[in-house]
Every structure is written in structure tokens, then in C-alpha cells.
């Protein structure tokens, strides 16, 4: 029987039970939102008075639903990324200087009655005798090849460094040559025949339109500046500058590249220093997924926890070495420890239990492709982990003893009974299903007993063994 309740407590009970919290509209707003969310899910009716924590199976189901949704989102976004890449590649290729030149030439020919002779991989104005007309071309030209061409034709060098104050269409190309710099020029072929080679040529309709009609233009289709070229890049320049004369048109290379010390020699809008390509020899990115930890073998009990982190991979012969930093945890170890304290007010026995552990993991695995497309890898290695001291103090300060005195201090650090370092063997599989995304499944067998038997009343081995399913996003990949 329950002891008769003292008067004061009775009054306290009556007072609190009679108390009504004033209704707040915001409370209903929150409830309304909750009901809206629930309406979308169409949750089945629950038992009238649910008790206890959710069933494990429900937890797992939620976890797997979460993983499924996450994988769907990742695959979808990766696919979208690929599609976008493909979509953007097509227009990008059509807007490369060479294509632009070609288009420009064709447009020019159409608009001004030019006969456009487009020859792939050739940069020669065909049949000089039949093309005596003026050709205004803006082109990428090679110092070594254009100079003789111009000289051969005995044409007067009439090229100058462009002032290029114009806005409007500008054709640029980033040179891949290690010699950095930009040169901009205008080619004004003389009325005589032109026979020039090398480089890309673009035709500016505006310029052509301003010139004589009946021009014949050769629009080359070179795709890029050759690697060995000195990398002169010519931009569209002369739109705003009317041609004073179509006579004496010739071209010569502009200033030697070396004389262009920096981009400041040219207007900022035109000059873009070319960077050398650097080889990237690591790939890195984020990791997100789930960790199915085995916290007990008899009976088998799993813990489900998220795992987040950052990973880095370095190339190695025939494969990669992958490492990273991940945070995850395990729940349900249920290790108990008993303590007994003596004090003048009486003996105090305390039982504490340890359920959760948080790990900071550093895996080191070798991964090697086993498919021809190098998209699937097996991986093997070790995993080191540190047990993080999270919420590890149990304080019994303030516990009241039988004589109503307060127990002085009985703080227990649960991590006194936990090994802080863990080591495991890892085996897994990774599928790089897009350039930026991969799915990774790995099992790690813990090798070290994490709990000290003399601290916890348990001689069983506590291992940090788990199956991790993660998605890996690559912020940067190998070049």
C-alpha cells in the first residue's frame, strides 16, 4: 500500500492537477503543421496507449527507408549532373573558337555574299587568284608559321597591337602553352592573293560587311592551338574600328610573345593570363551514410548510427590509397559497472551502464578497380578509431543518504573502463557510378576489446565491428 500522502504534497498535487495552461494559438499552429505532415504520410492508426521505445524492426525499417531515399537522391542528382554536363558540353563545343569561326564565317558569307570555303584542318585561303578580295580575319596565329606566310606573300606588315576598346563579340581561347600571354591582331590581307597558314581564323561579319562585297573567305576548322605553338590567341577586335583602307592588307605577327610581360599590356577585358595545367594527384570529398554496428553477438544485436566524414585518396600503382576522417557511433553495448561508496551517512551502491560510444575513425585502405571501366573497386585495409569522450561522466553528487545527508561526490568516468584506441580490418566494395559520386560498402572486423573487464561486470569481448554503407561525393577528382 502506498503510504498516506502528506498534506502539503496533497495540496501540491491538487494544485497542479487543477492547473490549466492557457491555450496558445502557436501551439495549434505547430499541431496543424504536424497533422499536415502526417496527412501526407497517411500513417496507420496506432494503438491507444503505446508504451516503451519503438521496436527495433521499426528503427531498422526507418533506417533502410532513409538509405533508400538517400541513394535515390544521390543517383538522381548524379544522373542530372551527367546530363547537365552533356548538355553544357554540346553548346560549349559549338562556341569554341574554331566553331565560332566557322559559324562566323558562314554567317558572314551568307550576309555579305561571300563564298565560304571551309576546309577542315586547313587554314589556307584556297586559290588565291580567285580570291582577290579583301579578307578581314581575326585569327589565332602561330608566330613561326604566320611570319613566313606573310613574308612569302610579300605583304606589308600591317598588323598592330590592337587597342581593343570595343565591346561586342570577342573570341578568346585559353592557350595551353606554357608560354603565357595573349596577342591580338587584325589581319588585313591586301587585295592581292593571301595564302596564309596556321592558326584559327574567325570572321567577323561586321568587319566583312564593312568591306567589299564579293569576298571569298576561307574558314578553317582547326580545333585548338597546337601544343607546340607559342599560343597566340586572337580576339575579335575591330568591330568598332572602321577600316581606313583595304589596301596594303597584310599580316604579321604582333609583338613577340616575350615582349608581352603581363596582362597589363592589354586591356583587362581581353587579356587573360593562361595558367599552366597542374596535375592533381589526390581526390577528396564528403562521406555520408549509415553504420550498422554489431554491438552484441549473443543474441545478435545491431546498432544503427549515421556516419559522416571526409575522405582523401592518392593514386598508387594500379590503384589508390584511401584514407579519411569519419565520425560514427554505436548504441546498445549495455555494459554495467557497480560501485560502492562508504560514507558516514550510509553505504552507497551505484550501478552505471554504458550504452553509447562515439568513434572518430581513420581508415587506411587500398582500393583497386576490378572492372574495365574502372568504376568498381574492391578495397581492403585497416581502420583505426579513437573513442571520443562524449557524455562519459556520471555524476552522483547530491544523492541523499539514509540520514538525509548529501553524498559528497561520486563522479564516475565511464571511459575509465573503455579502451580509447581501436583497430580493425576492413574489406569492401566501391562503385563509382558517376564522376562525382560513389557508393561504398565495407565491413570492418574490430580486433580489440573495447571494455576493461575489471571495470564492467562483463568478461565478454566488446568489439567495434560494423558494416558501413556510405555515399561518397568527390569535391575534386584526379586530373
Amino acid at each position, binding site marked *: 500500500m502506498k503510504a498516506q500522502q502528506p498534506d502539503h504534497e496533497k495540496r501540491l498535487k491538487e494544485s497542479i492537477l487543477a*492547473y490549466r*495552461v492557457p*491555450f496558445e494559438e502557436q501551439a495549434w499552429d505547430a499541431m496543424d503543421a*504536424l497533422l499536415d505532415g502526417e496527412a501526407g504520410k497517411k500513417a496507420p492508426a*496506432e494503438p491507444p496507449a503505446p508504451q516503451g521505445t519503438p521496436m527495433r524492426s521499426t528503427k531498422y525499417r526507418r533506417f533502410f527507408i532513409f538509405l533508400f531515399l538517400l541513394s535515390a537522391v544521390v543517383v538522381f542528382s548524379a544522373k542530372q549532373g551527367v546530363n547537365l554536363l552533356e548538355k553544357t558540353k554540346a553548346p560549349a563545343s559549338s562556341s569554341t573558337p574554331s566553331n565560332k569561326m566557322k559559324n562566323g564565317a558562314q554567317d558572314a558569307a551568307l550576309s555579305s555574299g561571300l563564298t565560304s570555303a571551309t576546309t577542315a584542318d586547313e587554314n589556307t585561303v584556297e586559290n588565291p587568284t580567285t580570291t582577290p578580295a579583301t579578307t578581314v580575319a581575326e585569327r589565332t596565329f602561330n608566330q613561326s608559321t604566320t611570319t613566313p606566310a606573310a613574308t612569302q606573300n610579300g605583304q606589308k606588315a600591317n598588323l598592330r597591337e590592337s587597342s581593343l576598346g570595343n565591346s561586342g563579340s570577342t573570341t578568346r581561347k585559353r592557350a595551353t602553352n606554357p608560354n603565357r600571354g595573349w596577342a591580338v591582331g587584325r589581319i588585313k590581307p591586301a587585295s592581292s592573293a593571301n595564302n596564309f597558314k596556321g592558326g584559327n581564323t574567325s570572321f567577323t561579319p561586321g568587319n566583312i560587311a564593312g568591306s567589299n562585297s564579293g569576298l571569298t573567305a576561307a574558314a578553317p576548322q582547326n580545333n585548338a592551338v597546337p601544343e607546340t605553338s607559342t599560343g597566340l590567341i586572337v580576339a575579335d577586335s575591330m568591330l568598332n574600328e572602321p577600316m581606313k583602307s583595304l589596301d596594303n592588307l597584310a599580316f604579321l605577327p604582333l609583338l613577340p610573345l616575350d615582349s608581352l610581360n603581363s596582362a597589363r599590356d592589354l586591356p583587362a577585358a581581353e587579356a587573360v593570363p593562361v595558367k599552366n595545367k597542374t596535375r592533381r594527384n589526390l581526390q577528396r570529398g564528403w562521406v555520408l551514410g549509415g553504420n550498422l554496428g554489431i554491438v552484441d553477438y549473443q543474441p545478435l544485436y545491431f546498432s544503427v548510427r549515421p556516419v559522416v566524414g571526409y575522405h582523401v585518396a592518392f593514386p598508387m600503382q594500379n590503384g589508390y590509397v584511401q584514407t579519411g576522417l569519419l565520425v560514427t557511433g554505436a548504441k546498445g553495448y549495455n555494459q554495467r559497472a557497480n560501485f560502492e561508496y562508504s560514507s558516514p551517512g550510509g553505504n552507497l551502491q551505484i550501478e552505471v551502464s554504458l550504452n553509447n560510444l562515439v568513434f572518430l575513425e581513420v581508415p587506411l585502405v587500398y582500393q583497386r578497380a576490378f572492372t574495365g571501366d574502372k568504376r568498381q573497386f574492391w578495397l581492403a585495409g585497416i581502420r583505426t578509431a579513437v573513442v571520443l569522450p562524449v557524455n562519459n561522466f556520471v555524476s552522483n553528487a547530491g544523492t541523499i543518504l539514509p540520514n538525509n545527508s548529501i553524498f559528497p561526490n561520486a563522479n564516475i568516468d565511464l571511459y575509465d573502463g573503455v579502451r580509447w584506441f581501436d583497430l580493425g580490418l576492413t574489406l569492401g566494395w566501391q562503385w563509382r557510378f558517376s564522376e562525382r559520386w560513389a557508393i561504398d560498402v565495407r565491413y570492418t572486423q574490430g580486433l580489440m576489446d573495447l571494455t576493461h573487464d575489471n571495470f564492467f561486470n562483463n568478461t565478454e569481448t566488446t568489439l567495434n565491428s560494423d558494416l558501413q554503407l556510405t555515399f561518397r561525393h568527390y569535391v575534386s577528382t584526379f586530373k
Partner: protein
Amino acid sequence: MNDQYTTTSADETLMQGCIEGNRLAQKYLYQRYYGQYMVVPLRYLNNREDALGVLNQAFLKIFNSLESFKGDGPLAAWMGKIVLHTTLDHVRSQKTYRQKIHFPTEPEEQPIENEAMNNLVAEELLTLLQKLPDTARAVFSLYVIDGFKHREIAEQLGIEENTSKWYLSQARQLLQDMLHQQKTSQAL
């Protein structure tokens, strides 16, 4: 449609509306019992937002399972049980480490004997309760206000019976101290 539900509609009418998923009926039922049941999570949790979250979860369960209510007893009592159990579920889920304290001797019943308590209104008493440590507050509320026995409290909270007794003792002692402090500060 919605006209049949008013703030004065009978519980049964609102209940029927809730089963049909009528939002207005749900609102009126919620509004009617909010004041009465909000006190329950407030007694067990020291944070008003958490308390509201728990209450709303409880109401969600109520709305979802109203169909299964057979009318054996009053609706209010059935709802009260759901609110209490949802609150206790929340209390249990918040504990990272379970702690059991065994004392070799039975603690004596040391009820609160303080006249100051009579002068406090319910809101102030709730505030005092919220200042107690989590488990002590839960045991005190379960024992003193909800009328559970130590054995039942031990089952509910996953602790031992003796542990429950000592938490009750601790809660009483701390409340006594707080009341004493309050009295002293008022006298000053």
C-alpha cells in the same frame, strides 16, 4: 460540414469529426484539452518547447487512434493516458546512461513539510518542479502527482524500486531546500 463543429460541441461530436479527419474538429478537441494536458509534459520536462512537442506527438497519436477508442471509460482519461505514456517515452529516450542506485537500507519517508508551499500557486510549483534533476523530477511527478507506486515507477523508468525511492527522497529534499531558500529570500 464545418458548421456542425463549434467550440461547445460535445466530445463525441468532435471525436467523430476527428475520425473523419476534419481539421476544425481536431482543433476544437485540441483546444479543449490543451490546458489540461500541457501540464503533464511540463511536469516531466524542464523545457516548454520540448513539452509542446511531446504534447503534439501525443495528440497525433490520439487523432490516429481515436477510431480504436471503444468508449469503455471517459475520453479525457483515455487521452490523459496517451499523453502520460508519450511523455514517459520521451523521458526514457532522453537518458543516455541508465543509472541504478542501490542502498542497503530502506529510505525513510521524508515528505515535504513546508508551509511556504501553501502560498505558492500552481505555476510557481511547476517552476520548482522543473528545477529538479531529470530523474528525480520524473519519480516525484509519478509518485506524488500521478499516484504510481515505486514498483510501477521502476518499470516505467527502467530503474529499480529502491532507486525510485531514493530519487523521491532526493526530490523531496531538494524541493524542501528550494522552498526554504524562497522563504528566506522573501523574508529579506
